[in-house]
């Protein structure tokens, strides 16, 4: 079933599950509403909780292209929407000159030739608006890295799904894309933009959910091992670390454990594979100095 035909929140959950993405009710409701109300969905949350994955799962469920715009400091319209291929334009000018076209009467026709679609470089936002066949999924990743001006510009595009190229005219989307915006919250996204969007704060999954996620994403993991890994991850997230492990890290860790051939998690294995879970020296030290006792106790309880 195609997720865009969902008529209930449960449909969304099962469609995402087909794509190996497990969503809880909150996230599924937000996605359902984004699809039905045709509004962008703004996802915030810690790094590694699976914000970007949502867009991937959506696009494979709709069976359409996922168009990704990675934001960064200083990004502007020429990288986000369109740019002219100046080098080709200049070449074309020289060529027509060589062919003997000149004089002021030809200038306007020359201009038409130059600002032709074949010299247009389409960047992600324009590509997302131009799709006429299927509704694309547009992922605007890490919008908090872009600056205020770009946000205002984005707001303009997202409010009527159209963009104007002075030399060509206005391009308006026949099928407005499904828009997923993610932010790591290094700064607040402007309220005006937030109000355009539906909002969901993505949390770390609970133990049960994480076990399911691990079994779906790493199909050959034994159930017992998945349980232990989820229990350890939950324990670490309670330990006041600088960077508690996200789902991405636990998936890495399970794969690491399987690769080294560990069926159980003992102190030695934990110690040698800790780098897959914790990426700060201070965090690793903290866990090591506290000893692995606490962490491993979680397994016995879980």
């Amino acid at each position, binding site marked *: 079933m195609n997720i865009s035909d969902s008529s209930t929140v449960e449909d969304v959950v099962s469609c995402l599950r087909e794509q190996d993405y497990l969503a809880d009710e*909150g996230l599924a409701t937000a996605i359902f509403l984004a699809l039905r109300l045709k*509004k962008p969905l703004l996802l915030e949350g810690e790094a590694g909780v699976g914000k970007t994955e949502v867009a991937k799962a959506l696009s494979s469920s709709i069976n359409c292209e996922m168009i990704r715009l990675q934001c960064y400091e*200083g990004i502007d319209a020429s990288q986000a929407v369109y740019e002219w291929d*100046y080098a080709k334009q200049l070449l074309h000018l020289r060529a027509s*000159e060589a062919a003997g076209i000149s004089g002021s009467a030809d200038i306007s026709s*020359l201009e038409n030739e130059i600002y032709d679609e074949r010299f247009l470089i389409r960047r992600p936002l324009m590509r997302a608006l131009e799709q006429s066949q299927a509704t694309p999924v547009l992922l605007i990743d890490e919008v908090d890295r872009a600056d205020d*001006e770009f946000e205002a510009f984005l707001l303009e595009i997202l409010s009527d799904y159209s963009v104007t190229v002075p030399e060509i005219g206005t391009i308006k989307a026949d099928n407005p894309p499904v828009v997923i915006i993610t932010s790591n919250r290094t*700064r607040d996204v402007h309220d005006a933009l937030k109000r355009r969007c539906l909002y*969901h*704060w993505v949390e770390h999954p609970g133990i049960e959910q994480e076990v399911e996620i691990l079994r779906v994403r790493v199909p050959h993991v034994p159930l017992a091992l998945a349980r232990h890994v989820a229990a350890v991850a939950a324990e670490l997230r309670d330990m006041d670390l600088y960077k508690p492990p996200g789902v991405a890290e636990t998936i890495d860790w399970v794969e690491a454990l399987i690769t080294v051939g560990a069926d159980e998690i003992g102190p030695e294995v934990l110690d040698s594979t800790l780098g897959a879970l914790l990426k700060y020296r201070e965090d690793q030290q903290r866990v090591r100095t506290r000893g692995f006792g606490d962490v491993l106790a979680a397994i016995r309880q879980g």
Partner: protein
Amino acid sequence: MSLSLERTIDRHLVEFVETLRKKGISISLGSTLEFGRALAETGINRRESVYWSGRATLAIQPEDIEIYDQVFDQHWNRGIPQLEEVPDLNPLTLLFDEPSELPETEEEPTGITEEAINVRYSRTEILAGKDFAKCTEEELEELYKVMKQLRLHGQNKRSRRLKTSRNGRYLDLRRTMKAALRIGGDPIQLFFQNPGERPRRLVLLLDVSGSMETYARSLIRFVHAAIAGRNQVEAFTLGTRLTRLTRELSSRDPDVALSRAAQTVPDWSGGTRLGEGLRLFNDEWGIRGMARGATVVILSDGWDRGETEILEEQMERLSRVSHQIVWVNPLKATPGYEPLAKGMSAALPYIDHFLAGHNLVSLQTLTKVISE
């Protein structure tokens, strides 16, 4: 569904939204309507549907979620609202989406420079050198008037965005092409560009513990001046906990800003655990990006009741991501002062500039350091 029933539900929704607003969540009319539309999609038969529809449309930042949960429990715990017809609503004041809220792209007002202040306030010249702690209420009032006009010009850093420049390094093909077209296609006149500049982010951390009380009340005005003057400034108070004040202080009217801030900060004049506060800042905001490449100004006397090791570790983390750390300590001006307070000496190795902040003149020095 009968019209009257629909109206009852609508009314219940509006009341719910109204209660959320009273508790401090800012919700626009647009979001309220969106909430109604969302419920039409998910239905109101299940508590969870109502809950998550509201979360997606009304609570637009994580801080809102706690309040939202409380209000939701009060409102919806009794299940679906009793379905009886109700008289018409009283008019409600609603918040509208205003396009004017968009960030302004125009140049920031340059404000009044330090020289101008000196010329205009002769009496202030004398006051400017006086320790805040020794000023009378009237003198403080007068100083505050001057501080209102302080404007910070932060450092710029290089942006990836290019700007036209006469002797730039990169060819501006767009303009060159336009010019070439005007004369029939020969790119004779070349235009160049260079990377532009953008203001470096400034993060202000103000200690509001008991030992800082006299100074904190003056320094917060400085913090306000810093925020009201430009974009890219963030402010927090460090006390028994960390409180973000950027939103509260962003009003241009200092009195409004300060009273909002005072309501928000729960721990004026409590104890400090500086290290713990910094740790929260690093975890929640700083390392993720807010302090990256930023100028961080810490306004504190360095008395830390917590463990010094924590402060040291957090200063090290902060110094690894920030551009520079400026520590402003009002006690530094005291004759014979040495940074012996445990916290202060632990922090010193990570500080780029160590300044006093006990009077207006020293704050002016601070504005210079920040802008150089």
